[in-house]
């Protein structure tokens, strides 16, 4: 079976439960976001799905390989970008990549052109013979991404792929992720950068030892609404006024723009009346989707309450 199929997956370390009861499916060609606070069990989940840890309960099938029975076969089809690039600093970029080609028993003559393509794409072309110890943080991160791809994996796990990258390089990585997915690969993205997740992922799962929420990003953003209001002058002046409303909406202010999160659409007229009453000159008020970050933080707040 292609993609990832997880049923009732759990992991315990002694008496400590790291994750339990995870059930989800990721399709080929899909970019799936795995979200959660630090210590929520994302890394443990990824480690089980990449054959580094055996599940304590449930089962996971990754591109036809069972995580608990066929770790070696599984590791041949998955690529893992860890949070730390984990490169050999005394070796050159080429030597680092060749090592992983050898571990995957690849024909280097065939694997190099594809690898070279990624090196060029990430701006590392011509730097192959330089020791990695002299690379910047961003270059190391990009080289680690190339290393993840040397064996042409069908399933790719990316942990904070744009960490340490400048905006231009981050965009290159995002474009590459989208391209890899369009080639039919399954991609799991773990990131605290929720605007990036919003841009790249079709669906997300939020975990905190167990699955808290899962669904398409668009639908999650629709759950609960927001109102974008443009006012004269600094919008910041009206934040406290709105926050004092009986339904205490969450308010973001930026320049002349206010984004008011609403539990109920029916509260929109109250928001506008309050603003006008406070002396605001309202230019426009448009219903908007809530940013994923708001959905995520609300969910964690509810979970913590």
């Amino acid at each position, binding site marked *: 079976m292609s993609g990832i199929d997880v049923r009732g997956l759990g992991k315990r370390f002694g008496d400590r439960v790291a994750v339990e009861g995870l059930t989800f499916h990721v399709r080929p060609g899909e970019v799936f976001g795995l979200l959660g606070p630090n210590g929520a069990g994302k890394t443990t989940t990824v480690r089980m799905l990449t054959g580094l840890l055996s599940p304590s309960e449930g089962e996971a099938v990754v591109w036809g390989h069972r995580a608990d029975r066929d770790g070696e076969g599984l590791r041949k089809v998955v690529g893992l970008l*860890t949070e730390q690039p984990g*490169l050999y600093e005394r*070796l050159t970029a080429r030597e680092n990549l060749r*090592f992983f080609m050898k*571990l995957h028993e690849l024909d280097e003559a065939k694997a190099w052109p594809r690898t070279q393509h990624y090196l060029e794409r990430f701006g590392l072309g011509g730097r192959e013979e330089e020791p990695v110890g002299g690379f910047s943080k961003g270059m190391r991160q990009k080289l680690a991404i190339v290393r993840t791809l040397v064996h042409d994996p069908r399933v790719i796990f990316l942990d904070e792929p744009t960490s340490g990258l400048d905006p231009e390089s981050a965009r290159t990585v995002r474009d590459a992720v989208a391209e890899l997915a369009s080639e039919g690969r399954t991609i799991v993205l773990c990131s605290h950068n929720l605007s990036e997740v919003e841009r790249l992922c079709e669906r997300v799962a939020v975990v905190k030892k167990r699955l808290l929420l899962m669904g398409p990003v668009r639908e999650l953003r629709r759950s609960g609404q927001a109102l974008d209001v443009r006012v004269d002058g600094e919008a910041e002046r009206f934040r406290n006024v709105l926050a004092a409303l009986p339904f205490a909406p969450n308010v973001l202010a930026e320049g002349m723009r206010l984004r008011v999160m609403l539990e109920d659409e029916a509260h929109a007229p109250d928001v506008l009346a309050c603003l006008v009453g406070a002396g605001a000159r309202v230019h426009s008020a448009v219903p908007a989707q809530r940013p994923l970050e708001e959905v995520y933080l609300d969910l964690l707040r509810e979970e913590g309450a």
Partner: protein
Amino acid sequence: MAFRPRRALAVFWKDFLDLRKNVGLLVSMAVLPAVMVLVPIVVVWTYVNTPNSADLRSVAQFYDPTLPLGASAARFLIDKTLTDWFGLFLVMPVFVPILIASQSVAGEKERRTLEPLLASPVTAAELVAGKSLAALVPAVVITWVAFIVFCVGVDIVAWPLVQGPLMPNALWTFGVLVIAPLFAFFGNGVAVLISARVSEARMAQQISALVVLPLVGMVGGQVAGVLKAGLGFYALQGAVVLVLDAVLLVASIRLLDRERLISRWG
């Protein structure tokens, strides 16, 4: 899980390449052989240059009160030095793999390279084989090269007294060709085992290095005249080390288990 030699060789290739570029480690590795070769040559040279010293005879008679009056005390002490020094020379094949293997296993944890490595198809047995080869090959080659230099040096300085080649003798030839590789395997096994349990290469080196103490102790015993070690003694020692090597190999493969390494260090 089948053992794939190609993957073990890949690990060996990477570790060997990394070693070649690690100047600090290469210097540390060169110091011990230099000492092991130069010290006995200088000692033999002093005996050769003071063959009639009364002090030499006193020392020789301490070790062998039945030494005939006509026998050369210098020659006796040269032979004794060469026999005793072999025990100390064995420290080299034990110590060099400890230096290398500690870096290569605990170093993977320190540099955070362990998780990407374990996420590849390489198995624990291939990892142990590759890393062990990368520590053993340099250790055995260094030992053999040092032995050749040692033989040539001793023969050159001893020639005026002995008028013939002293080295290589049976003990040294058997010891360096057979026992030294077994000791190298032992040093490597200890370092791999300890590296799998501690988080820093330096700590792994320091703890592993304690295994040379019994060797040094035995040489101390020989110098004090308490212990007489010859070919038979070292052959027995080699047999014991062979058994320990087998135990260490099995233990290393078990300890380099993915789950254990990742849940503890990843």
